[in-house]
């Protein structure tokens, strides 16, 4: 990754593949449980029990059933106890990704996206500072463990990953940006492989924030792209992938899950929390990612949309898809898996990338659940129930507060390059 002014120029872009994946979502632990759940069209919302929601408008979310005790193998009870809820989610998914890739750590960069990071630890620090400010016991530990870089450094140590650590915090596009950055690190030859992903855990501040914005669906059932959609549901989880040069993966005989074909990132400056209504920047990132991939909209077999279920976001993305696809829009198959597991914020882009990879491996289309009457913006083929399909190239969109927009394109290996 290093820059030296007298070093030779970078070689031609390299082919980049995914050689391992891991996922932990409200749908379940690991690739298999998630594949079964999305294939069956299951929804995974439940009452929030990890903090007080009794005075909120909404009381449900996609909460993961996470054990207090360290899982068997791979981590000590002491190390587990130091991890905040989000990092535990991340560790489980990252460990699966490494194992799936046939790796046990090593000198590779770790690029991680998160939005809330270890906020629950910060919340405890805050409460203690208010309640008993002169009591110092455990406060240093809370300050230390609140910091995302401390948590991720600890996680890397537990995983045996010793390369540089980069933590991207671009709100709800964080996870996608992390994978996109990893893609570029490998593509440019700056790294042979990178562990990349995203995570976020449910926490009170963020839950209250979305509730205060009245962005949460009062019923707790998100209906992305429904004409009468009324908001999102929050969720938690993590998705990780091992991003590797095709040459490196082949040299060590690794399983190649998919090729990363393209990545686009751009900034929507329309408003801090609202996208441009015509999806201008979403269009830019979709076009950029497909241009890099060397493919046209007609070659995309499935779009995992950002699809939050809020009135403004879905319109903007729908308009972007229409403009991007043009005359082909009716053939473009789109769904939002947030309808099943909620919005995983900083983890969303990474988890949805992994869902795309699972869909491509299993050759099925996950669904946008709960749609009664599709919004008029849905001139595309909105997938309302899971279906079997031939998937060779998939695209996933991620858009965040602050206008962070990202698009990733994955393909079956060898389809393009």
């Amino acid at each position: 990754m290093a820059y030296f002014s007298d070093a030779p120029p970078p070689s031609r872009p390299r082919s980049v593949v995914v050689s391992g994946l891991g996922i932990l979502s409200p749908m379940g632990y690991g690739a298999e449980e998630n594949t079964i759940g999305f294939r069956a069209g299951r929804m995974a919302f439940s009452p929030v029990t990890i903090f007080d929601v009794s005075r909120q408008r909404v009381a449900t979310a996609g909460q993961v059933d996470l054990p207090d005790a360290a899982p068997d193998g791979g981590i000590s009870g002491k190390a587990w106890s130091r991890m905040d809820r989000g990092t535990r989610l991340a560790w489980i998914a990252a460990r699966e990704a490494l194992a799936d890739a046939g790796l046990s750590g090593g000198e590779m960069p770790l690029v991680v996206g998160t939005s809330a990071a270890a906020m629950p630890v910060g919340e405890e620090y805050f409460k203690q500072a208010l309640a008993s400010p002169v009591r110092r016991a455990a406060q240093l530990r809370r300050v230390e463990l609140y910091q995302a870089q401390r948590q991720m450094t600890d996680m890397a140590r537990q995983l045996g990953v010793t390369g540089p650590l980069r933590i991207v915090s671009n709100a709800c596009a964080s996870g996608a940006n992390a994978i996109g950055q990893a893609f570029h690190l490998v593509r440019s030859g700056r790294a042979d492989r990178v562990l990349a992903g995203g995570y976020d855990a449910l926490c009170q501040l963020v839950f209250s924030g979305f509730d205060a914005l009245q962005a949460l669906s009062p019923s707790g059932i998100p209906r992305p792209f429904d004409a009468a959609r009324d908001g999102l549901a929050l969720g938690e989880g993590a998705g990780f992938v091992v991003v590797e040069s095709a040459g490196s993966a082949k040299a060590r005989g690794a399983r190649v899950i998919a090729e990363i074909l393209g990545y686009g990132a751009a900034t929507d400056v329309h408003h801090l929390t609202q996208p441009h209504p015509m999806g201008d920047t979403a269009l830019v990132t979709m076009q950029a990612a497909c241009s890099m991939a060397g493919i046209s909209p007609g070659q995309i077999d499935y779009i995992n949309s950002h699809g939050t279920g809020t009135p403004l976001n879905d319109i903007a993305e729908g308009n972007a898809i229409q403009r991007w696809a043009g005359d082909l829009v009716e053939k473009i198959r789109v769904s939002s898996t947030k309808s099943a597991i909620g919005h995983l914020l900083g983890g969303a882009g990474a988890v949805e990338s992994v869902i795309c990879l699972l869909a491509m491996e299993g050759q099925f289309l996950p669904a946008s659940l709960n749609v009664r009457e599709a919004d008029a913006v849905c001139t595309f083929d909105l997938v309302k129930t899971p279906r079997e399909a031939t998937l060779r190239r998939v695209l996933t969109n991620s858009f965040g507060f602050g206008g962070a927009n990202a698009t990733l394109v994955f393909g079956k290996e060898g389809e393009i390059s």
Partner: protein
Amino acid sequence: MRTPLSITGCGAVSPAGWGVAAMMRLLEAGEKPVPSFLERAVGDEIIRTPVLRVPAEGATTPKFARLRRTSPISKFAAAAAMEALGENRLAEVAAGNLRVGVICTLTNGCVNYSNRFFAEALADPSLASPILFPETVFNAPSSHLSALIGSVSPNDTLISDSTGFLSGIDLAVEWIVRGDVDGCLVVASEEIDWLSSEGLLHYSRNYLPAEGGAAVYLEASCGPVELLRLPDPVSLAGAGREQAACEIRRRLGADDDGKTLLVDGRAGIPRYDRPDAVAWEDWQGPRWSPRMLLGEGMGISAALQTVAAVSALESGLFQNAIVAATGANQQSAGMLLGKNP
């Protein structure tokens, strides 16, 4: 030979005042700013925390609708970024002739509004302000910067320890070399709040929490201050802090030739300064430690070091400058800058 990369603009907001000149005057004079005290009442008790604030007078925050409701962190970032970018380049961006990326690096982040919003949410969630919440997000300052300059180019926020600014430079290099942008603003910003200030003092009573912002504009050119070496940071996941600092020194490969300035990350707290002290123990050349004067600015520390190094090179005092630092809990990082004739 790669395309040369240069830092062609700098900005700073610090306890010394608004602007790079104010900071450099203080550093050259070796003066410490006068601390003030944050006070909060808890029952009958008053908790007083010494801090180094950015002085209110002389503020250069740009007038921009989005910045009206923001907390200081975004205002510091905006002022530093505008100073680094300069009016001419701002006009070029507005005219669509210059693609400028934005990278913000933070440790503490938007703590003022987070503190306020969470207090409101605990008191009565139904009354918590929806205006505050979006400003609590880590990438709010970087979003405001892109909106301020009117750039749709990539925009990333990195969370890191005090060395994160160097990771930001690294990412900027990627973008520029790849041709994603014509130039890149790399900005660090932090704001003072009782919550974070008291938190810092749990590490050491001798820390003096500080706030501010710093920015550099990096582009592909043969400018007066060129980026010569930016080795990979050494993760503390695989090395102890002292070992990491020594490894960074080795990777920098800089000569102690008397013409090279070392701008290190020491803050004046021996326990935390030890890695930098050990790694550079035999350094005989000139050496600055801006943090000892400007306070513990967490995420802005390496940024202020960088601005100091660039300014020192521009002044013609030195041929090269090293920025080196070891953070508390992530990495050790460094950079070698050189002055072009």
